[in-house]
């Protein structure tokens, strides 16, 4: 198939028509992230604010330069660059050095978004691409646990991964919900993230299928591990509110471009992400496996979207 040249179109998808603009949706998503951002500054202080601001600034700047480079009308004002910058910052430890923030935010925008010609074309979540690029390059700087050993806070998922269930039995759910845990600086603010997610759901900016299926996948896998394991596996609740699980469910997984658009594929995608997260936590080397699991699920999106209803009176849809 030939790439569709712009005959009449003036912008890449997604196109929303109902008085609601794409820019508006992006701004509301940023608004939904604010409680978590405030909680992050509350817990980690100015370093967290520094990481978030720097990341957003670099993301916007990189995107503006990229639009110039590919000689297209800039769409940097739609706010997605800020959102991607914020997503990336949310996954970082508060102690991240400046060069890590800069290179990761730039990688997110360039490799995750702009090489696909801007928003809507990217087959993978932009911030996820940036985060994984840095994670495999500078593992020790990216890992919240190893970089923040002097913090009085606990790192539930890491301690579970390295020391087992016994070591984390004294971490209370309330603490984790309040964000009193080490993880991605914003991603670990489970309670605030949950609030933001519910806001997005109530405003119908995201559909409930993906978050529900993702959480369902995590819970299901955790239950299976608990029932078949030898009592050393943590409960579903622990896995859900520990680390950045909820951030993945409500924000990273529901990124409009790389996620499916039909209900059944959405559920399959969410389940796949959740189950893969648990598999990597159990058998892999990453304690908080959400970004990797979501990347894998997004790779499968085009295949999952083939599970489409058959239009009445025609043959099978050619996807």
């Amino acid at each position: 198939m030939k790439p569709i040249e712009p005959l009449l179109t003036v912008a890449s998808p997604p196109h929303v028509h109902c008085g609601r603009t794409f820019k508006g949706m992006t701004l509301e998503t940023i608004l939904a992230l604010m409680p978590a951002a405030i909680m992050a500054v509350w817990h980690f202080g100015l370093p967290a604010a520094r990481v978030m601001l720097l990341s957003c600034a670099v993301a916007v700047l990189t995107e503006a330069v990229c639009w110039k480079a590919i000689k297209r009308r800039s769409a940097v004002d739609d706010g997605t660059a800020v959102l991607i910058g914020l997503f990336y910052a949310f996954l970082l430890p508060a102690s991240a050095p400046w060069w890590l923030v800069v290179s990761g935010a730039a990688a997110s925008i360039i490799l995750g978004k702009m090489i696909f010609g801007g928003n809507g074309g990217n087959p993978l979540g932009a911030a996820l691409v940036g985060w994984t690029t840095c994670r495999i390059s500078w593992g020790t700087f990216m890992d919240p646990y190893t970089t923040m050993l002097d913090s009085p806070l606990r790192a539930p998922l890491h301690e579970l991964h390295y020391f087992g269930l016994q070591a984390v039995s004294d971490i209370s759910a309330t603490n984790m919900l309040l964000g009193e845990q080490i993880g991605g600086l914003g991603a670990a603010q489970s309670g605030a993230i949950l609030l933001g997610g519910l806001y997005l759901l109530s405003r119908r900016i995201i559909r409930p299928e993906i978050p529900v299926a993702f959480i369902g996948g995590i819970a299901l896998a955790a239950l299976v591990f608990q029932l078949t394991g030898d009592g050393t596996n943590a409960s579903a609740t622990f896995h859900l509110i520990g680390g950045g699980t909820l951030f993945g469910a409500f924000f990273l997984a529901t990124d409009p471009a790389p996620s499916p658009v039909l209900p059944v594929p959405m559920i399959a995608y969410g389940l796949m992400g959740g189950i893969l997260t648990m598999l990597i936590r159990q058998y892999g080397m990453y304690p908080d496996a959400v970004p990797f699991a979501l990347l894998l699920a997004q790779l499968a999106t085009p295949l999952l979207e083939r599970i489409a209803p058959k239009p009445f009176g025609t043959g099978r849809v050619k996807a």
Partner: protein
Amino acid sequence: MSTLWKEFSKGLWRDLPPFRLVLGLCPVLAVTKTADNGLGMGLAVIFVLTLSNVFVSLLRNIIPSKVRIACFIVIAASLVVCVELLMQAFAYPLYQQLGIFVPLIVVNCIILGRAEAFASKNTVLMSTADGLGLGIGFALSLTFLGALRETFGYGTLFGKSVMWSGFEPFTFMIEAPGAFVCLGLVLAAMNALTNWQRGVKGLEAVEGPKHDCKACGMCNTPLK
């Protein structure tokens, strides 16, 4: 003389093997972790490509066309075994580094592709120039890519430190994803350069050369 030069020099820029012809990608991706390895692999390919062109061209009138592919494979494979033995004897560390990709030179599209498309139709002198030119182009490209990845991935170049002291190596570049992304970006840069040149001449921008397995001429020729 001028045609001889033309056949030689086309491999250096116009038909630069991995970047313009987009052929033989496996070694390009696999052995370019460092500039040293890229250069070593490049030299091995120059040896095999030039000599296989020479032998194929020498024997082109004797070889019956029905078994020509089989003959080309035997010639290329013998040369590859030669390289393997020589490398083990004189450059053992390089042999350890390149590993499985030394024997795999035999299935590099460039070798059989040039034998089929050029050497079996041209004189020995021309075939030598063609093989040498493309081989040198291939070696230069591999060294370039290796230098790029080594500089950022290890902070060294040909084993010598080149980055500032606080530099944290960008390991992404030497891992598999970095190999793919780097090669993709270099290809895109080549395309952008072409389009810029076309733009200066007032021509429309075009897509870059398509990678096509069939381009090597081998794939669609049955071995009969």
